[in-house]
């Protein structure tokens, strides 16, 4: 008897290649499974960023209610990233086993209750533990990039990844604007402030859960349907999982990119955590204004990260890998200089201007990093992406621990300048990246390339 299995769709409303992966990126269409997957992926990652950074803008009220000290707040900030280091590393293999749709929706549905249980806490220890658990949801970054790589072919995967990550990161900025407004609205209904901030977390929790359900209901892992374990079409043999892992971990370029990503994306995460309180404490603005200023930092992601990806592609077309590496180094160095300047500016208006410029450059650097990552290894792409992605959160933990953990003798503005200095130093290792077939920043390729560098399918 013929199994009534799902017939693979042979007709898509979008141009596809032989693997049925989309070769074009149609932003305002949801008719094809590819674009539907794109919108579901970036929206559900957006909800995770929204939840993780929903606490910092309300800290001036939370810290009074829970009797927190600077040390507690610093530890909680570190904890929020520490959880995501391990979850991002684990998410790669989990996507391999179960597919990105189930992996991301399960993670979102399991962490949404944690977001709402913010309303239950009353001690500093529970506050730190809560932020640790909520931080797990940031692993959805790996699943969204994995999903985009499954749905889009090499010619547009960079753009799809960049726009998805950039638009999702906007969540970390928008939440800094929205949460204080939600809190003031609830407080205006004659609810005491100590209860109003707890009620406000219904919004991010519900949003995250709704997005997870939509991913399950409307998304599919592959253009042809459900995820299958042997999905590596086009690869010569079924690679051993541990071989792939070993191949990725021993590639030194993955480690260097992890380090530099830690000092662009990691710095961005740390800044998301401290910037609202910084403006509130230093310039005596009210909580809504501090939130609005902090929001403009994160919201810039919607253009700056995709712009970084596009710049990388453009430099790659003109100058090859050398162009990609040089543009990454230059943009990240300028970001470091602006970060040093941010800590030195003493006026409110000046700080806002410098912060906006800093946000553009540091987020573009994140986009530029993932313009280099796909070229490091095709066989171990997932592992390299996971290493780089985790490196981002490690950088956030390190900067937050060393510079903003409350037990420091120096002020926040000095910490910000020192963070910029660390960025400048830790971007230098890019000079050591060398590809035999494409060269490095200062060296010519040693092997004569016999294929176009932009041809993604020819990567080793």
């Amino acid at each position, binding site marked *: *008897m013929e*199994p*009534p*299995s799902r017939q693979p769709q042979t007709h898509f409303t979008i141009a596809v290649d032989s693997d049925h992966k989309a070769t074009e990126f149609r932003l305002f269409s949801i008719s094809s499974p590819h674009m539907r997957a794109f919108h579901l992926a970036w929206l559900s990652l957006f909800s995770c960023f929204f939840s993780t950074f929903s606490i910092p803008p309300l800290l*001036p009220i939370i*810290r*009074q*209610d829970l*009797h927190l*000290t*600077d*040390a507690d707040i610093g530890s909680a900030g570190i904890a929020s990233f520490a959880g995501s280091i391990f979850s991002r590393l684990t998410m790669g293999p989990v996507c391999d086993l179960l597919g990105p749709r189930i992996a991301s*929706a*399960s993670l979102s*549905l*399991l962490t*949404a*209750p944690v977001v*709402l*249980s913010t*309303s*239950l806490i*009353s001690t500093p220890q529970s506050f730190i533990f809560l932020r640790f658990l909520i931080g797990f949801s940031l692993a959805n970054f790996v699943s969204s990039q994995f999903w985009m790589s499954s749905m889009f072919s090499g010619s547009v995967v960079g753009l799809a990844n960049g726009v998805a990550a950039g638009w999702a990161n906007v969540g970390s900025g928008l939440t800094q604007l929205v949460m204080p407004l939600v809190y003031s609205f609830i407080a205006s209904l004659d609810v*005491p*402030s*100590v*209860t*109003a*901030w*707890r*009620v406000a977390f*219904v919004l991010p*929790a*519900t949003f995250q*859960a709704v997005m997870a*359900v939509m991913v*399950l209901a409307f998304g599919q892992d592959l253009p042809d349907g459900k995820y299958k374990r042997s999905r590596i079409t086009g690869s010569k043999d079924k690679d051993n999982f541990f071989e792939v892992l070993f191949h990725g971990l021993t590639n030194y370029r993955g480690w260097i990119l992890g380090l530099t990503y830690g000092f662009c994306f990691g710095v961005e995460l740390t800044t998301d955590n401290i910037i609202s*309180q910084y403006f*509130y*404490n230093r310039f005596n603005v009210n909580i809504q204004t501090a939130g609005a200023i902090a929001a403009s930092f994160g919201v810039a992601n919607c253009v700056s990260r995709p712009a970084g990806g596009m710049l990388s592609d453009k430099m790659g077309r003109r100058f090859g890998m050398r162009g990609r590496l040089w543009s990454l180094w230059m943009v990240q160095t300028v970001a470091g200089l602006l970060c040093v*300047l941010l800590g*030195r*500016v*003493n*006026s409110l*208006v*000046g700080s806002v*201007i*410098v912060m906006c410029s800093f946000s553009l450059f540091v987020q573009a650097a994140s986009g530029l990093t993932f313009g280099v990552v796909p070229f490091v290894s095709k066989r171990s792409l997932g592992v390299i992406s996971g290493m780089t992605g985790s490196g981002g959160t490690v950088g956030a933990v390190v900067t937050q621990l060393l510079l903003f953990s*409350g*037990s420091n003798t120096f002020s*926040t503005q000095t910490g910000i300048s020192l963070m910029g200095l660390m960025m400048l130093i830790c971007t230098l290792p890019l000079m050591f990246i060398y590809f035999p077939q494409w060269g490095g920043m200062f060296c010519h390729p040693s092997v004569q390339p016999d294929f176009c560098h932009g041809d993604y399918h020819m990567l080793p």
Partner: protein
Amino acid sequence: MKSHLLTAFLLLFCLVQTGNGGVLFSSLPQTLVVTASIKQGQVLIAGEDSIILTWGLNQSFVGRTDESYKEVKVKLCYAPISQVDRKWRKTANDLSKDKTCQFIMVSKPFQKLDQTFKWSIEKEAPTATYFVRAYAYDSAGKEVAYGQNSDAKKSSNLFEVQGISGRHLSLDVASVCFSAFALVSLIGFFLVENSKKKRSTDN
């Protein structure tokens, strides 16, 4: 392009300016006398208890300095123990940057005679240890004198306020229901998927 970048950086550097300082606390004479109806170490409940404040000019200073005093603001101030490891409550000599006294209890025009006021502890007052300080302001709104119920080291006549907890039964119930919904929908999805798979493999 390069010259534009240079001008932009120069413009940014010009924006770096030091802010104007406010009145220095160390320059203020302690000419006011402030008392509060509390016992050392007493714990008061926010939203329920109240304190009777009394403030006035120290009699030995009458007629000498008080012509410029136009208004008195009595403020609730954090004791040093509640400022430890909390930079947002830090004491600074420059009063425009000082964050010791963040709550105004009462604000009245200055009178030569002593004044009293019964202040009910607001519901929003956070859990901390406090003392009471009064500032006298001139017609331009600048501080010109002060007085406090504690000693110079801020170690005597301190009292604690116990803030209210924001937890509410309805919130707790909503959290539990929501968590249940999230877990049930995840498990339900897996069950539906498995039964679909079974049906397609059985046929």
